[in-house]
């Protein structure tokens, strides 16, 4: 990890990993989508709508994973002042927000035929919505501060405050109102989902995770290069002024 602190080494790593990661993502998506649409049987109650789950559940997992990545990056930038951690935190926020949005949208499309409404003020839905707002706050803070080092520090503080708050928010809304089904994949006594539906779900989860890594690496590379261009332009402007 330490050797990756150097952005140049990181770019080198990205250059090597990127083709493999792209290939893996494409293959996993191909297999996962094939399994979802042609192999997985319709659910005995939900019919074909169960297949929304193959997008919905991985998106929701990734939404939370992206926030965890941001929080770890925040620790990295506050404790070790790791410049790459700033970049990682900044670029993960829009991706995480997108996955959160996807989870909310697919959930509401599934909710219409199953629950009879696009939206209910249920604990899971509400805590995802609050997570989405936290992402928006982070992105807005990054946009509002021009100087990257201050923006990085401020966003890191906000990300950690949010990370402490996410479990509290989750439990308080759980206590408040609940309709969403409880955890059914990872739980004591094994999964309550049939293996025929579980296999495509896991392949899709793998595909989404690879997609997240791929997008995150690409965004980090773009951000590092953008900062370099900015620095070069500044030097150029100073030289022109002198």
């Amino acid at each position, binding site marked *: 990890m330490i050797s990756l602190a150097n952005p140049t080494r990181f770019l080198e790593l990205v250059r090597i990993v990127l083709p493999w990661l792209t290939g893996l993502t494409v293959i996993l998506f191909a297999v996962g989508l094939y399994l979802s649409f042609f192999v997985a049987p319709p659910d005995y109650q939900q019919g074909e709508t169960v297949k929304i789950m193959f997008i919905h559940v991985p998106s929701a997992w990734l939404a939370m994973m992206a926030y965890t990545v941001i929080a770890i990056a925040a620790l990295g930038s506050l404790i070790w002042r790791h410049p790459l951690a700033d970049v990682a935190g900044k670029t993960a926020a829009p991706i995480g927000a997108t996955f959160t949005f996807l989870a909310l949208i697919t959930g509401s499309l599934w909710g219409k035929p199953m629950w009879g409404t696009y939206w209910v003020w249920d604990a899971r839905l509400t805590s995802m919505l609050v997570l989405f707002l936290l992402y928006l706050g*982070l992105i*807005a*803070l990054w946009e509002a501060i021009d100087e990257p080092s*201050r923006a990085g520090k401020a966003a890191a503080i906000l990300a950690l405050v*949010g990370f402490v*708050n996410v479990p509290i928010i989750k439990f308080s*809304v759980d206590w*408040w109102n609940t309709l969403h089904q409880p955890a059914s994949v990872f739980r004591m006594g094994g999964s309550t989902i049939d293996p025929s539906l579980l296999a495509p779900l896991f392949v899709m989860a793998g595909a989404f995770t690879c997609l997240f890594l791929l997008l995150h690496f690409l965004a980090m590379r773009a951000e590092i290069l953008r900062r370099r261009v900015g620095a070069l332009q500044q030097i150029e402007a100073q030289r022109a002024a002198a």
Partner: protein
Amino acid sequence: MIRAALALLGRDLRLAWREGGAIGTALGFYFAVIVLTPLGLGPDLNLLSRIAPGILWVALLLAGLLSADRIFHNDYEDGSLDLLTLGPLPLELVAGIKSLAHWITTGIPLTLLAPVLGLLLNLPIESSGFLVLSLLAGTPAVSFVAAIGAGLTLGLRRSGVLMALMILPLYVPALIFGVATVSASITGPASPWAPLMILCGISLASLVLSPIAAAAALRAALR
């Protein structure tokens, strides 16, 4: 150190008092929002008394947030914040004291105004006690968490809107348990004390944790 802390608290309270406008503005805002709500919903008293706890709480959060950018802003403008960083008090304590001063000058007046506004919304008069208790227990969390936002947005353009976007999601737990306390005291059957205790816990946790985050934010802003 205690003397320095008390001196700072006294100074902030005197400033807020002599400045005058700030406290009155928050109270006026709270009043205006509560007056507008029945105009939007219609004068159905049953409906109003059912939603009164939520309206009173949400409007209070907005009023508190509206006045929160002044926690650090004036001291940042005239440079006294720089002096405070160099002074004997740790920055965490400075942030804590300033949040406390904000609570005393905003949280408590808003809390005292709330039962009067509750009458306008047909809140049962027996529940006023629990309304005041829940606000007294919850407003410290409002002030202390707002200090984080005030620190993060120090000296930025459009800091007010940005702060609302960042901080309002963090108010969800306080809002839920605050409203649960008042609602339980109106309709029962659950005891209002349980959510009130949780609300106290949330406030105590934010009392300890947010000055640390606010001080870190100030260091990032002042460097």
